[in-house]
């Protein structure tokens, strides 16, 4: 019977198999997350656009991420608690931690444990890729709705490798058809492919993306200055609004040097920024962290030294800069250690 089949029948069978794969992926998503069967389902479902650009969609949910009515990855605002903002990018938003284990939630739990009552609420306004430029644009809205007493700032330093263009407003791209099976397959491939092979593929991709372009051996000084000015602007705006900033230096998986075992993680990081040489990443971290320290000293702001105190290594970091559950716990301890005395010192009413 099989030998009498025409190539067309086999082609149809292959198409049917592809459709079955895609159908299974969509049904799987529906059962696991109640994802829509026919529409797109990726991280972009969490966001929407307004006049200021990309923002969290109220009540959005995607896999383990859930937003409140304001479009933040936080519980609903509690009018009876003292609020603390966490400003940052993907590290603060939380990527790899189990749901509820991202460090802003753990900081909240730790502060309340120390206080002995549910006194504090941490409102996490971070999104992946968020820069201080974007934060500054949306700050008045955030401050008026959240009314925080303290703002914890944990900037993602690699966002300054390519200078953000202040005239460009980041927007969520329109949803188009995507093969969900493809993204699932990519995730599985990442899990099963040997690390050495993954590094080889990434190195090839870096070379391809670079396309003969110039590789920077050091982050340009103008980027450092840009970061300094933006940070300064953010700090001053917060202070004018009566919000006490707390700065956190940026930690990486590598500590102060990259071991040969950790080089694959560095290559994975560089894949996002091929124009910066491998050796320049930790130098960039050190220089921008130094800016954080200097600005903190100038503005008399408390600094939590995550860069120096976070233990390096795969136990604490799921990739180059994003935390694992253990890393999130360690980060929460470092921040809480500085934040709680600061809150006690500020004292005062529950709201700003």
């Amino acid at each position, binding site marked *: *019977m*099989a030998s009498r*089949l025409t190539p067309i*029948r*086999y082609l*149809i*069978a*292959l198409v*049917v*198999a*592809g*459709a*079955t*794969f895609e159908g*299974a*992926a969509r049904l*799987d998503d529906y*059962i*696991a997350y109640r994802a829509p069967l026919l529409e797109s389902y990726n991280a972009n479902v969490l966001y929407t656009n307004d006049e200021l650009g990309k923002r969290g969609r109220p009540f959005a949910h995607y896999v383990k991420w859930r937003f409140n009515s304001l479009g933040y990855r936080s519980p609903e605002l509690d009018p009876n608690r003292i609020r603390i903002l966490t400003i940052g990018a993907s590290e603060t938003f939380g990527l790899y931690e189990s749901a509820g284990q991202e460090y802003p939630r753990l900081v909240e739990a730790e502060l309340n444990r120390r206080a002995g009552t549910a006194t504090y609420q941490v409102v996490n306004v971070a999104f992946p890729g968020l820069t201080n430029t974007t934060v500054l644009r949306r700050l008045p809205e955030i401050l008026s709705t959240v009314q925080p007493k303290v703002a914890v700032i944990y900037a993602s330093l690699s966002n300054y490798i390519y200078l953000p263009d202040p005239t460009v407003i980041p927007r969520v791209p329109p949803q188009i058809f995507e093969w969900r*099976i493809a993204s*699932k*397959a990519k995730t*599985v491939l990442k*899990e*099963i492919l040997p690390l050495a092979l993954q590094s080889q593929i990434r190195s090839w991709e870096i070379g391809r993306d670079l396309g003969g372009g110039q590789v920077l051996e050091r982050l340009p000084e103008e980027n450092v200055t840009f970061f300094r000015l933006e940070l300064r602007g953010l700090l001053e705006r917060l202070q004018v609004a009566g919000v006490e900033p707390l700065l956190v230096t940026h930690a990486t998986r590598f500590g102060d040097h990259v071991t040969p075992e950790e080089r694959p993680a560095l290559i994975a990081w560089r894949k996002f920024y091929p124009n910066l040489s491998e050796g320049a990443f930790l130098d960039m971290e050190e220089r921008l962290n130094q800016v954080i320290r200097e600005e903190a000293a100038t503005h008399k702001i408390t600094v939590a030294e995550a860069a120096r105190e976070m233990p390096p290594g795969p136990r604490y970091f799921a990739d180059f800069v994003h935390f694992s559950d253990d890393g999130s716990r360690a980060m929460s301890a470092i921040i809480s250690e500085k934040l709680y005395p600061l809150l006690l010192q500020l004292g005062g009413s529950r709201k700003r």
Partner: protein
Amino acid sequence: MPFLSPLPLVAIFLTWLAVRYTPARQARHAIVLLASGIFYYSVGGSFIVILALSIVFNFYWGDLLRRTSSTPLLFTGIAVNIGLLSTFKYLPQLAQPWANLSPTAAQIAALVLPVGISFWTFQGLSYLFDQYRGEELDPTLLEFAIYIAFAPTVLSGPISRLSELLPQLRSSERAGWSDLARGTQQMWVGIWMISLGRLLGSGVPAEGVTWAFDRSAGLGFFEVWLLLIGYGFQIFFDFAGYSRLVIGLAAGFAIQLQENFDRPFLSLTPTTFWQRWHMSLSFWIRDYLFMPLAMVRGDLWWRNGVLVLSMAVFGLWHQASWLFLLWGVYQGTLLVLHRFWQQFAKRRKLVVPDLLSWLLTYVVISLGWILFRSQDLPQARALLGAALNPWARATVSLPASFVWLVLLTAAGYFSWCWLSERLEGRSSLNWIPVEGRFSFYALTSYLVVFYRSSVESFIYFRF
């Protein structure tokens, strides 16, 4: 699952190519044995030494038995094999209560079970029995080593017989591409069944049979029965799927292994069920334990007693525990009761409708899963209490996803059986249009790839 990662699959294909294109039979056997040894070492590590010793001992002891037919020698051979099995399988459990009191007991209790020992020891024993009986078996050491350590069967059976394997090993025909295609198709069916079994175990998204058994204290009458149906299918798909996978793998090498399952949930009587469930062990027990003992005396009570004893051994083969002993005795009692019923019905010329017969069989077999799956006697007692009391109310409700999963699985299984009986072939998928087959392969691949990390390990590896 040891066969289902990229590296083993590539290794299997390379071995197949080597076997396919090696003209000399001895060389082909050497390749198969080498590949099997590497495979066993990759799973069982240094236990390969014990496997090798068992092979050498049974081979030479069998040869001795063939020449002498000495009963003391047979019993010595049995004692050595049972001693080896007991040392790893039963002694640690017996030593467990004294582990805190004596360092020796602690060491014994910590012994790890060599992978597949229950299966390959029974194969070694059947060889000794066959040689003692004077069957025409004259394997070379190489052939015997393949019989015991053959990669597809060494971990979890089916328990083969040398009399079935030897002619195939000596055949001059080499495995061809059609064997590979036929074997691969069977492997897909096996993978699909395993995936389904694991889906039942882990649930969608995470509330399956395991979840429900962990909360069994709060289950009522209906919930317990649903759970038992679900567990019956879980263990069936898991083990029958693994057997199908292994049979397919061997078929690729042109080795026809014994079937291990034959639509057991369609059985109309407990006797038929045990001719269709874990057939390789069931027939082993029948041929090497029940029959020899039953022939000692002609009395009915003796034969029935031996039947219960045989099933008790069947239970204990899984694990030395009260629950498995009770499960075996329960199954033996069912078989005896069925015999009585057969005689009674024959005398009174009673005919039971097939549907009622099937339902009764399904119910009593399912009830037995309580003893098979429970963690301890109190859990078994609680489950039995709920299963036998239609008024037992639940304090824990089963999630709708679990109810649907079990009901759809049951409906799918019985529909499939109905369909396959009416269409050509039971194990072949060739009657399905190519589009349907490709769709089936895609769905199976999806389950294998995307549910591999969230699933439990193969149930019968524990035994």
